[in-house]
């Protein structure tokens, strides 16, 4: 059996000056070819879990291994796609500028990215079918186009794992289908961990689903419906 790309063991976390634990005794793993969904109520700890996996927070108890190393050490190999890009629309930036952020590293000095970085950025745009947007201003893109460009940015970092936070929020059904088709294609070579509230999406596309509500437990992704979700929200085991 291949080594898991995410391995979380007995993780507990609470924010400083807060007695209540946001996550308690969390253990789960994600395999090298899987597409795993994270579901859960608002305030259940999904965002905190993502921040722990990305190395933005440190666990109080327990351990996290990402791609065989610590989250802070390996985060350059994790392609993260946020729910809403924090890219300011008033900033004069092209799509290529945004994707090139995926090539940024601690050794990035000087005014221009090397040609190799530019080639990788263009290859990522090609993989997400957004090559024609390369010279467009970021502020002129639609929500669906932005999500594809952010995925291109994640791919430009030569990621070995994709982590997405509700990427389908705010985009129309047609664009959502295109996006999911793209993710299916990418999952042929990359494991994906994706936060979603859409049970149809989770049950149709993902291999497994994890319910995050202070702790994490596996749920049957392929038989998710509104009734089972209702049970989960009320803390009953499905």
């Amino acid at each position, binding site marked *: 059996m291949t080594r898991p790309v995410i391995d979380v063991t007995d993780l507990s976390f609470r924010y400083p000056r807060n007695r209540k634990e946001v996550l308690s005794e969390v253990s789960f793993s994600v395999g090298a070819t899987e597409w795993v969904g994270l579901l859960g109520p608002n305030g259940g700890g999904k965002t905190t879990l993502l921040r722990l996996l990305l190395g*933005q927070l440190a666990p109080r108890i327990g351990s996290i291994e990402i791609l065989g190393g610590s989250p802070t050490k390996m985060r350059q190999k994790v392609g993260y796609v946020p729910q809403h890009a924090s890219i300011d629309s008033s900033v004069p930036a092209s799509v290529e500028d945004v994707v090139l952020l995926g090539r940024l590293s601690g050794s990035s000095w000087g005014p221009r990215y090397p040609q190799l970085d530019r080639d990788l950025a263009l290859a990522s745009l090609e993989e997400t079918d957004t090559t024609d947007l390369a010279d467009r201003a970021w502020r002129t893109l639609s929500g669906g186009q932005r999500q594809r460009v952010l995925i291109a940015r994640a791919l430009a970092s030569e990621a070995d794992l994709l982590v997405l936070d509700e990427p389908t929020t705010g985009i129309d059904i047609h664009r959502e289908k295109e996006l999911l088709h793209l993710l299916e294609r990418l999952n042929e070579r990359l494991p994906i961990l994706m936060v979603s509230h859409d049970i149809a999406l989770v049950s149709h596309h993902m291999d497994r689903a994890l319910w995050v509500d202070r702790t994490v437990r596996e749920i049957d992704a392929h038989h998710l419906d509104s009734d089972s979700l209702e049970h989960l929200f009320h803390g009953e085991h499905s």
Partner: protein
Amino acid sequence: MSQFFADAAINPFLWSGLLAGGLASVSCGIVGPYVVTRRLVFLAGALAHIAIGGVGAAIYLSTVHPQTFGWLEPIHGGLVAAVVSAPLLAVLKHRMKERLDTVVGALWAVGMSVGILLIKITPGYHTELMSYLFGNISFVTGRDLVFLAVLSTVVITIACVFHRRFLALCLDAEQAELRGIPVLATDIVLFLLIAATVIVLTQIVGLILVIALLSLPAAIGARLTTRLGPSMAVTFVVSALVTTLPRIAVYGTPVSPEAAIVLATAGLYLVVMLRRRPGVF
């Protein structure tokens, strides 16, 4: 306008004023777009006003203790105050997400008040504060031009070395952090660059004009372009035009050149804002 060129033949200060405007435009063209896109106009304004405290302290010390601090000039005090407060403001920006404007506003007011208080209790009559507030672009000396040339060289060098990091912070600081960029340290470098720019430019064009020159041409550049590099070029050209043409236009009239520059820049910004809204023109 013809009177300006007729007088320029015998008055070298008129040419040095124009050259100062051109050199100031280099710094504004590079630093301005970072200030506007990283949304630091308020913090840049705070830096300039906190520096008044340093200006006041330098005037007080050099007057009251001439044997020890006789060498101290107002710009030295302003520079120390700005350079010390730049990292502090960068840390506050990172740590105080919600109350930042209140704290920065307080520092702004306290810095200015300390400067005014120290000048008030300093024996004698001092015009340095007025010069700091309104500048004196009509009497730029050769030493000022050297100062500006050095600043331009420093700004260009630092921007060349840090540009990709500054751009990343302007675009998406969270992503920059995830990619291994030390965001706070990079912001401190940017704030120090802004502090140096504000202080040196304020000596020549005045506090009010420096804030206008750091924000409005860059806002015009951001409106008219889709990348930060071209935005810097547009900002430089706009800065050079607005520090030159209004000055020549009001020469020989009672209108102060500094006020003409600010009003012309604000007018141009308004035109660009309205022009970019479909159906306005």
